[in-house]
């Protein structure tokens, strides 16, 4: 926003020097023929990703040593813009000398980072990130081929964005890896949602069973759950009062409540008070529990010992 966004620059200004050099002189551009693979006593793998009608297509060639799974030679061909050429070239370079299992771990971020001039400055503008995602996808496809996963079964993977053929698993992975929070970012990284836009949210010209907004929501929920989990991991003494209440609730939900409900009772957390070195947790029994003999002995000790075990040694449970 502000002054920098008023006069649109050319996207080329945002390409790193490395990207420019690779567009001009890609090192691994070309093919591996069956004869060349045979000469290396290697298995030839040819994998495609993308489609020209979507603006990007890449073909990856691997010569893999069948004894060691090591990628001896790696080449690419690409229908695509300059950054597609540069990231395909980088991807092919990164594959060399790795085993297939190692190569599968190469992510779009590795590809993009390898093209940076300086560690903190992105190699390409955001809308060009999809080029490196494609490089990442084609490696997975090549690996699937090498490992004998049926191409047909690969093709039947759940596709969320039909135009750009972006799969549910790719979207989930890219969203997580890059911590994406908006539709625009998903589109920049994967091209999903850039074309007919039907996959973004309900109400487009084609109905879908899963939309990009659903995936964002799913990821946000997952993140919240993780945060809750990590607060559960933090020392009880360092938690805020709300976190303490939540943590106690969670322990009771996970370990105790079900048992009580089965016996026709339940439990309510009323308050948590710091009392010297102790944490006093005030509870109230509900239903069958209130008045049960065990509620002030066995059940109470069980609850207290689970909470002590899971949260803090100094917890005391006081029924009211």
């Amino acid at each position, binding site marked *: 926003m502000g002054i920098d966004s008023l006069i649109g620059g050319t996207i080329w200004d945002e390409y790193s020097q490395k990207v420019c050099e690779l567009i001009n002189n890609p090192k691994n551009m070309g*093919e591996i023929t069956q004869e060349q693979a045979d000469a290396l006593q290697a298995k030839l793998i040819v994998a495609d990703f993308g489609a020209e009608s979507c603006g990007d297509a890449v073909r990856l060639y691997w010569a893999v040593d069948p004894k060691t799974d090591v990628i001896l030679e790696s080449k690419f061909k690409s*229908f695509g*813009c300059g950054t597609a*050429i540069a990231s395909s070239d980088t991807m092919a370079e990164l594959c060399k000398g790795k085993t297939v299992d190692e190569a599968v771990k190469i992510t779009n971020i590795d590809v993009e980072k390898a093209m940076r001039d300086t560690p903190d400055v992105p190699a390409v503008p955001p809308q060009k990130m999809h080029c490196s995602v494609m490089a990442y996808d084609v490696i997975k496809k090549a690996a699937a081929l090498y490992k004998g996963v049926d191409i047909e079964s690969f093709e039947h993977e759940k596709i969320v964005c*039909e135009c750009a053929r972006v799969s549910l698993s790719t979207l989930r992975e890219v969203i997580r890896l890059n911590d994406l929070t908006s539709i625009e970012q998903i589109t920049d990284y994967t091209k999903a949602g*850039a074309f007919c836009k039907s996959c973004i949210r309900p109400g487009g010209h084609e109905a879908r069973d899963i939309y990009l907004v659903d995936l964002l929501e799913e990821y946000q929920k997952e993140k919240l759950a993780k945060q809750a989990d990590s607060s559960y991991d933090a020392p009880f003494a360092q938690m805020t009062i709300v976190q303490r209440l939540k943590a106690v609730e969670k322990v009771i939900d996970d370990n105790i409540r079900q048992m009580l409900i089965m016996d026709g009772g339940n439990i309510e957390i009323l308050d948590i008070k710091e009392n010297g070195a102790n944490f006093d947790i005030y509870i109230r029994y509900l239903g069958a529990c209130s008045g049960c003999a065990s509620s002030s002995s066995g059940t109470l000790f069980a609850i207290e010992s689970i909470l002590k075990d899971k949260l803090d040694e100094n917890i005391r449970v006081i029924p009211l």
Partner: protein
Amino acid sequence: MRVYLDNNATTIVDPHVYEAMEPFFCQKYGNPNSLHQFASDTHKPLKDALQKIYAGINAKSEDSVVITSCATESNNWVLKSIYFEYILTGRKNHIIISEVEHPSIMATAKFLESKGCKVTYLPINSEGIIEAHTVRDFITDKTALVSIMWVNNETGAIFPIKEIGEICAQKGVLFHTDAVQAIGKIPVNVQSANIDYLTMSAHKFHGPKGVGALYMKKGKELTPLLHGGAQMNGFRSGTLNVAGIVGMGKAMEQAIDSLDFEMSEVKELRDRLEDALLEIPDTFVVTPRAKRSPNTILVSFRGIEGEAMLWDLNRANIAASTGSACASEDLESNPVMEAIGAEADLAHTAIRFSLSRYTTSEEIDYTIEVVKNAVKRLRAISSSYAYAPTGYNNGLNESH
């Protein structure tokens, strides 16, 4: 060598235009509305310039050719004033444009659509041309305006403005044409075609940037978009862009004088470039030559993404253009390529070369050589021209 073949984007300012504008910066800088000699010094040059602009499109002196800041302003003015006068008041509810209008029409129409106006987007045929009868098919008794460009900026396709104007007149519908890409390239005569409104822009015909105009036929004057000091007879307030108007007048005069040259010499160079490009295998040009403005080629090189081609051209100091995905902020393919129903594989391959009367024969020779080398290099990289083992099926030939 530095070659500029992006004249549909903007043009070099004609040196005579520059010369004509020069005195109005540091000598005759008066505000035309003031009461002193500084102001009066500008009146005759302004009037002369307007006369040249009127003459350029054969407007009658009782018509209004109002100077604006650009074609985008002129186009916004027409659509929004029609909305205020006809749609908002409930008299009409509908406008018709083509599906390949410039963004200043397209985005404005979409905006008005969001405000309740009905909009029809007329399709082009496989030659990239609007067929006049489609206009007739979509006009209803609630249609307020038809707005169709005279020449398409991407392909150079010339639309049947005369026929469309006649249909609009018969049906009693207002007719606007965006003639930005027509002026200086083909004859533009508002009397020939029942035109109510016509948009133009100086920088597309070797005039300065920041000055355009809107022709309004007598009796069809629009509500102003810009209110203020009542300049331009109250139609368009704002201190007159004196140098710009003088420059536009001169540029129009030069453009009209150069029309024959444009339709002969420039066309000849364009045709030579086009012939040479078509010698390259798997190369396609949109819209037949006879139906195109004399300076434009929209060409597709199979297997080469548009931005990659622009990259190689730019490295060789050649400026061209692509409307395709990877060179733009969004990731859409060229809208014209989609609209003509081009093969999906070609949607991202379109490159536009647009010449001008400043383009030289040497520049064309050089461009041909550079394009041929670029095609060779990029097809060597392209997966469309890649080796695949026998019997190999990549499963990517399904339609998407």
